[in-house]
């Protein structure tokens, strides 16, 4: 028997989430949203549990997780940095902002810094086009970010 490692508390929480959706496999995406809310990401063990609870194959769960860009199997940094790559932001220079973050944090998009402080991701249009280009750090929105402003944003969280 292969074991899946999860703490009792988290396991119960996860099972309760599945139950709240009647263990209905049609609710898989809703369940995954909640699970990612609890764990911050969707490690393999979590997907195994969900598969078991909803009575579907793990491959199915992973097929769904790997399809949707909102779901991730990698833990995010303490301060997840997301740069909007909607057209409005692109036209107003978001690419240069990304490059600057990559340079300063020395990581690529989709990666987390070795100290676990920052992770870098791209988003598709957060709808704040009036503020383009837009950067999110966690929930906080930074509008009209110029490449020169990037170091200030990083400094704000680097402490």
């Amino acid at each position, binding site marked *: 028997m292969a074991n899946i490692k999860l703490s009792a508390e988290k396991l119960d929480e996860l099972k309760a989430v599945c139950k709240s959706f009647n263990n209905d496999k049609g609710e898989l995406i809703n369940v995954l949203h909640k699970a990612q809310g609890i764990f911050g990401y969707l490690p393999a063990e979590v997907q195994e549990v969900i598969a078991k609870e909803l009575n579907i194959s793990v491959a199915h769960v992973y097929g769904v997780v790997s399809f949707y860009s909102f779901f991730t199997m990698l833990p995010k940094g303490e301060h997840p940095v997301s740069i909007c790559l909607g057209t*409005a932001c692109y036209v107003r220079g978001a690419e240069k902002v990304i490059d600057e973050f990559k340079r300063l944090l020395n990581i690529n998009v989709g990666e987390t810094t070795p100290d676990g402080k920052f992770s870098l991701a791209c988003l*598709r*249009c957060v709808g704040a086009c009036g*503020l383009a280009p837009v950067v999110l750090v966690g929930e906080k929105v930074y509008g009209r970010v110029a490449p020169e402003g990037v170091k200030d944003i990083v400094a704000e969280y680097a402490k």
Partner: protein
Amino acid sequence: MAKYKMHVLVCGGTGCHASESDTLLENLKTIVADKGLDNEVQVIATGCFGFCEKGPIVKIMPDNTFYTQVSPADAREIVEEHLIKGRKVNRLLYVDPENKEHISDSKHMGFYKKQLRIALRNCGFIDPENIDEYISRDGYEALAKCLTEMTPQQVIEEMKKSGLRGRGGGGFSTGLKWEITSKSVSDVKYVVCNADEGDPGAFMDRSILEGDPHSVIEAMAICGYCIGASYGLVYIRAEYPLAIDRLKTAINQAREYGLLGQDILGTGFAFDIELRYGAGAFVCGEETALIHSMEGLRGEPTVKPPFPSVSGYYEKPTNVNNVETFANVPVIINKGADWFAGIGTEKSKGTKVFALAGKINNVGLIEVPMGTTLREVIYEIGGGIKDGKKFKAVQTGGPSGGCLTEKHLDTPIDYDNLLASGSMMGSGGMIVMDEDDCMVSMAKFYLDFTVEESCGKCSPCRIGNKRLYEILDKITQGKGTRDDIDSLRNLSYVIKDTALCGLGQTSPNPVLSTIDNFWDEYIEHVTDKKCRSGQCKALLQYFIDPENCVGCTACARNCPVNAISGERKGIHVIDQATCIKCGACLEKCKFNAVFIK
């Protein structure tokens, strides 16, 4: 009940929210209470005003004063000066860019003058979290009218007569769609609202859901009545937390009032709505993919027919309409199909909401009658091109659309004209580009998006779009040939002809449209190895002007690839073959000797 003498409306849309409008709202409320005005002044958060460029927006009624770019710190002045002393805070008023005058009534602003707000009628006017405000604006009147005075078929006829077409992009007649679903025989049917707005740079659906969620709920119930469904689902992007919250609140309020649930308005009609979340897949805007996603599957589209109207959610007849389409429905029922059909052009009735963005002065959400010209939208509403640059193109229809250029400026915007011009209506993204934008790069940007968002099911889209992207990339790297342009064309036509779903079939549009409209630019890229906008870095060349070079060696020392040679105090030269165009020399030169050509 307090009888307020003044209403302070604070924009609570995502754009303004991002600029701390929530703190501003709190500040206003606190200060109003401190001053003992809370019985006279009501401070409320509304949906988006549309004028996102100038957010956060605060509107004061009844003075009809429109404040722009208000920061939380401005709250005190607004309360003390305007609310107490009746003096408008001039520095927060909108300044007319032409005559530099302060304008306080939004009606007189260029941005609003040409607009006609039907779908957005309540956005920026009511508190979206208060069903009473919606009801007082004829809310649920249309539902009541349908349930008590009209048969489902009559409502369908009215919808058909109105000429309303799907606002999600396809432009299919809404009434006809309802009719087909109503005629599909099944014990269970579904109404689905497609709120998976994924076009990069489009946010009209989100604004409606945030600003006027009840209009969508009401319309879904009307649709349910017409087609014989008692269950509705809203498929909404998880990236829209605010819209989700507002929608949930609204659904709960409607349930409390008995406007959702069993026996609505005593007519025996039952209808309820649940939410399903998207998870970041553009293709889920395609209705079959959306339905699969709602079933907990990968969002892969399937071949139509069967259409969802016949076999949709769990193989039951399902009517899918998008948010903006639904938002129009209650107004049509209330004011009549004839009124609606009186607006717009021959085949495109009513208005269309656009998200205006890019190199334009007034970024924001606008709603104009069909038939408005691009010139009116860009120059009158949009306030022209940013920084006085030259207009180059406007991209409509997002990654499925194409570019419209100078020659299309006076074309009235409607479904058919846009299609004829090589673009499409799409969901309403409108991105304005100026002379600094490279059209090859623009096409590449959209293909990058499509490659990222392709579901991978069919080979033309999965591999073909990747190849399109690679060829475009090659061209922007200065390695393209004339043959590449032909390849782009052939491949584009094949993908359009063979891809499985709407996403794939339209994905080459940005390529074809830019080739058609900006042929010269493509040729320049491949034959002259030049990018006139300067956006393609690889096509730039850095030079040192011998006139200005003093031989300080700063450039040579900072060049990461040692491409610069020259003696101290002598003139330096850049070896073009070695140069990687990083721009370090330009940055380091204090004597303006480095220039780009």
